[in-house]
């Protein structure tokens, strides 16, 4: 299958990127001024403790040996041990990753549900009242800071109306749907305007295409033309916008995670940074980077599904 081949080739293309990521993450520990072990252990660490940490992290080895060791552990599935928790960083991440993934996917789905109808509605009458209304909503959505909107939503929806939980994650699918709705909505509010803008512009551009005239010449209804000919062709650039935004979102959910007390990856990262927990920060960074690469591969796949010409290129 052409599509399967495309998928595999995109995955293979991601390999050098991932190798680059491991290099950057590895170097991370050396970018901190001073001795990383000293920094991690604090000013009152004994020289013995520092030496012990040096040999534990392999800092007494030459640099390339250190990298090989790092890669060897990594490929063996060992993401290192957290200093702060005294636990495997991999286990810590595995426990927190689901919430973050849920949040990102939920927010992306909500953003699409808002953006597609809004963009079509606005583009159906360019420069008319509806178009301007959508534009104003977009600007407001872009301008409102996420943490503020999150707090307002908690105050209004959870505290005043007693509708949805204010913090934490409930177990189960429905529990997740319910408890993650407000945080996802908060993120989607910032993401929707960008998708609306690109989709609206693209719908207007495609409306002028020759094939839309062909569709009109067939005697199709405006609704048929919109759904079958306009939307799909206008979607590709918006998928790119969405992909870029989701990429930013990975690792960028920490503020929302804090506001809603969700304890996801962003939260773990913040804890790691606070505690100068190098192994943990390295591990989380690596996982986030892999996620970003994966999202971009998914974005490319979506493009290929939308537009058959992508596979050929």
């Amino acid at each position: 299958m052409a599509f399967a081949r495309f998928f595999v080739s995109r995955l293979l293309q991601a390999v050098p990127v991932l190798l680059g990521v491991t290099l950057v993450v590895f170097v991370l520990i050396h970018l901190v001024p001073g001795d990383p072990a000293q920094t991690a252990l604090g000013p009152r660490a004994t020289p013995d403790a520092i030496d012990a940490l040096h040999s534990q992290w392999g800092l007494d080895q030459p640099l390339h040996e250190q990298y090989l060791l790092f890669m060897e552990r990594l490929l063996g599935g060992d993401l290192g041990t957290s200093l702060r928790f005294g636990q495997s960083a991999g286990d810590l991440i595995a426990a927190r990753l689901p919430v973050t993934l849920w949040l990102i996917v939920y927010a992306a789905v909500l953003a699409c549900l808002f953006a597609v109808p809004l963009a079509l509605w606005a583009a159906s009458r360019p420069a008319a009242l509806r178009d301007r209304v959508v534009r104003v909503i977009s600007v407001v959505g872009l301008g409102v800071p996420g943490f503020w909107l999150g707090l307002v939503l908690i105050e209004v929806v959870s505290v005043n109306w007693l509708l949805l939980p204010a913090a934490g994650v409930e177990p189960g699918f429905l529990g997740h749907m319910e408890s993650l709705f407000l945080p996802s909505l908060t993120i989607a509010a910032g993401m929707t305007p960008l998708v609306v803008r690109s989709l609206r512009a693209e719908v207007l551009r495609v409306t002028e295409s020759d094939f839309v005239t062909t569709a009109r010449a067939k005697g199709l209804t405006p609704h048929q033309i919109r759904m079958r000919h306009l939307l799909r062709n206008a979607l590709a650039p918006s998928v790119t916008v969405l992909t870029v935004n989701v990429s930013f979102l990975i690792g960028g959910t920490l503020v929302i995670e804090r506001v809603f007390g969700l304890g996801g990856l962003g939260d773990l990262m913040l804890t790691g940074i606070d505690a100068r927990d190098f192994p943990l920060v390295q591990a989380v960074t690596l996982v986030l980077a892999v996620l970003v690469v994966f999202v971009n591969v998914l974005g490319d796949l979506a493009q290929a599904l939308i537009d058959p010409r992508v596979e050929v290129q």
Partner: protein
Amino acid sequence: MSRPDVADRRLLSVRDLRLRVGGEAHDVVRGASLDAARGEVVGIAGESGSGKSLTLRAIAGLLPTGVTVAGGDIEVDRVDVVKAGPQTLRKLRGATVGMVFQEPMTALNPTMRIGRQIAEAALAHGDLSRSQAKARAIELLERVGFPEPARRYRQFPHQLSGGMRQRVVIAIALAGNPSLLLCDEPTTALDATVTLRILDLLTDLVRDLGIGIVFVTHDLGVAARICDRIAVMYAGQVVEEGPTAELLRRPRHPYTLALLRAVPTRDRDIDGLRAIPGNPPQRGEELPGCAFAPRCEYAEPACRSEIELVPVDDDRSTSCRRHSVLAAMAGGHHD
């Protein structure tokens, strides 16, 4: 102009059509008239900007945004296109009038399989089931010259050459069983051999299906090959109209004559070509009388006053008041 033999086969009648661009105070098409019947190919020939494509678009009620009908009548198969509402127009398009466009590279939806694009057009009007529409699409693909139509059904436009894409566009236009096919320079984007095959296909369709075609082109060679009658347009007006052979052999309008002299032929090398002196009128230029008069070697002062398309001979008409001079001179003119 009156052709009683075709009165019952009459498909299209355009009378004094005026088209206006935006709020500008002048018209880009200034009183064009045209007829077409079943089983005949009527050409509209003219240079860029003469208003030929807009006239064609107006017939299907598919004028670009900002262009409006400022006057005149268009009747297609007894439907008044100018007064028709969106619903009536939608039923007309595809079912009565099919359109073939200039650019096969962009006229097809790049993200939809060609078979579905044809089937969709068949579904829009007839009460076919999905599988019947698919069968119809495959049948049409075969009709327009696709070998292995069932396999080709699943292809995307980018997998086809320009000529094959144009065949798909023609299949789409035919899907609703229209009686009138409007072709907007359908061969301009194609190379010479492909052009000939497409013209042959269109000629076959007229013969086999008994449809009528209005064929817009700037290429008199193409027009000569496919058209039964030709209407020559200049600056938004039909300046001469008549049977192809007569009109090309003995033009009754100096503009037609000038166009003919600008066509390269086998026994006329590049130095023998004559460019038409001057330029077509600018948009908004006041045009009392004959718009071609400023560039015309036969013009006399009276040409700058009122003109109209008048019948000459049996079934020809011209807007040139000096057509008799041309007729006398063209007696010895053979091309």
